[in-house]
């Protein structure tokens, strides 16, 4: 396993680059996902504030029909899964789904437990803690937020109203937006990141492999083939076209082969001279 130089050189680089790119992509995706969810929650907080401000005058005038119309119109927009206003006791007063009006909300559900965990409900809570994610009855993933409707001097001094000044929260607006567009964007982003990662991996690992092959493995293979030929007795093979740091090695191997060839030639020459001398000595002996 991994005996070849190619595998030994490329495997650690490939593992390191692949692993690091995967870790970075997962972390980046996670950070971007949480940023996008935070943005969606901020958008919902702003939308909830707008709805509360839009209904404020109608509420001051105790104009229930106008409030109901506003809620219906907002709820009919694309992407809005539910809009409801319930009073301090949890009784739904206005809702885009008319069948749930005059029903109580469950205080133990995800959106309510944040404030109603203790015996005394928490009146102030941060934006992110007011948000919740769940799958509704229609099977749509929803990002919902609850916004408290605070008591104001205009509320408890109005002649038509019965709220006293000690009551801090009059009711709560609950609005839920479909998470489908967000999930679709995240899915597209995930796909793009995967393509980008694969391209980075192919480029980096392929680049390293190509450069190693061009500058190390091919010259080494040529030197190996050259030495193998010399070893088999072929003393005049060609070894050229080697550049970079392996030039010196190729030069040394070539010089060794050349010296070996010279030595063999000299040996051959000496052997020839010896045979000639032997022949001469034989001729002389015959003539004598």
């Amino acid at each position, binding site marked *: 396993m991994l005996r070849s130089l190619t595998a030994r050189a490329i495997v650690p680089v490939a*593992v*390191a680059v692949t*692993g690091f790119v995967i870790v970075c992509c997962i972390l980046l995706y996670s950070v971007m996902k949480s940023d996008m969810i935070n943005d969606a929650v901020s958008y919902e907080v702003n939308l909830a504030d707008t709805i509360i401000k839009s209904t404020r005058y109608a509420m001051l005038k105790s104009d229930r029909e106008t409030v109901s119309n506003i809620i219906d119109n907002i709820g009919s927009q694309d992407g809005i899964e539910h809009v409801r206003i319930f009073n301090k006791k949890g009784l739904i007063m206005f809702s885009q789904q008319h069948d749930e009006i005059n029903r109580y909300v469950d205080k133990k559900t995800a959106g309510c437990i944040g404030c109603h965990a203790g015996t005394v409900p928490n009146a102030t809570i941060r934006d992110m803690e007011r948000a919740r994610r769940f799958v509704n009855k229609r099977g749509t993933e929803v990002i919902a937020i609850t916004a408290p409707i605070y008591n104001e001097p205009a509320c408890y001094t109005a002649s038509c109203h019965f709220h006293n000044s000690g009551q801090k929260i009059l009711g709560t607006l609950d609005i839920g937006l479909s998470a489908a567009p967000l999930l679709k964007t995240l899915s597209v982003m995930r796909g793009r990141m995967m393509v980008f990662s694969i391209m980075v991996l192919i480029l980096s690992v392929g680049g390293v492999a190509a450069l190693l092959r061009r500058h190390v493995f091919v010259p080494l293979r040529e030197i190996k083939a050259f030495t193998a030929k010399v070893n088999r007795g072929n003393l005049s093979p060609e070894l050229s076209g080697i550049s970079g740091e392996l030039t010196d090695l190729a030069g040394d191997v070539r010089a060794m082969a050349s010296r070996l060839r010279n030595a063999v030639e000299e040996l051959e020459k000496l052997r020839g001279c010896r045979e000639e001398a032997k022949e001469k000595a034989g001729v002389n002996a015959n003539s004598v």
Partner: protein
Amino acid sequence: MAVPPPGRTEITLAMKNQATHSPQPEDAERPPAQKGAQESMEKIRRLKAKASRGLFALALFIAVSIGAVQNFEFLPTFSPHIRAVLGTPPSANMISAALMLYSFSAIILILSRMMSGSGSYSGFSHVGYLTAFFAFYHFSGALDENFWAVFAAGITVLGLESYHIWTFCTEEIKKEQENLAAPARNRGSGEGAGE
């Protein structure tokens, strides 16, 4: 990642010697070549044990990861008082930045150790660091989203560590086996020359 077996008669002979010989007094009488062979055998044994450390660290990390994927439900939960004592956990973004920095530096350190041919191994420390990342994500409530990031970092770092220690030990074992075979080879060539 099995290390190559010795597969030489000298090694088996040396092993037999190692098994049958009793300690100190006989060591003094033993010829230096035999003593050297026994030392080489002992070194090979130690290298083989060291080569498998990478697998143990990986197995330990996978066991911790299985616990993390279950959100450490088998461990007792901290009481609110202990949580208050521990303080607010760092944000998930901070932990992610630390994880990225850790993976980068760990990979660079392992690659530099590979380059220098050092035989040091720190796989078990990495298992500790990665477990700490799991713990931090768990306490900040972001383990579900970041589990795969820690897992990928762990597999990469420990995989590289294992590969490094395995190749290092394999090469060292080969050297020791050549050392063990050298006297026998010399003896063989000497006898050949004598003839």
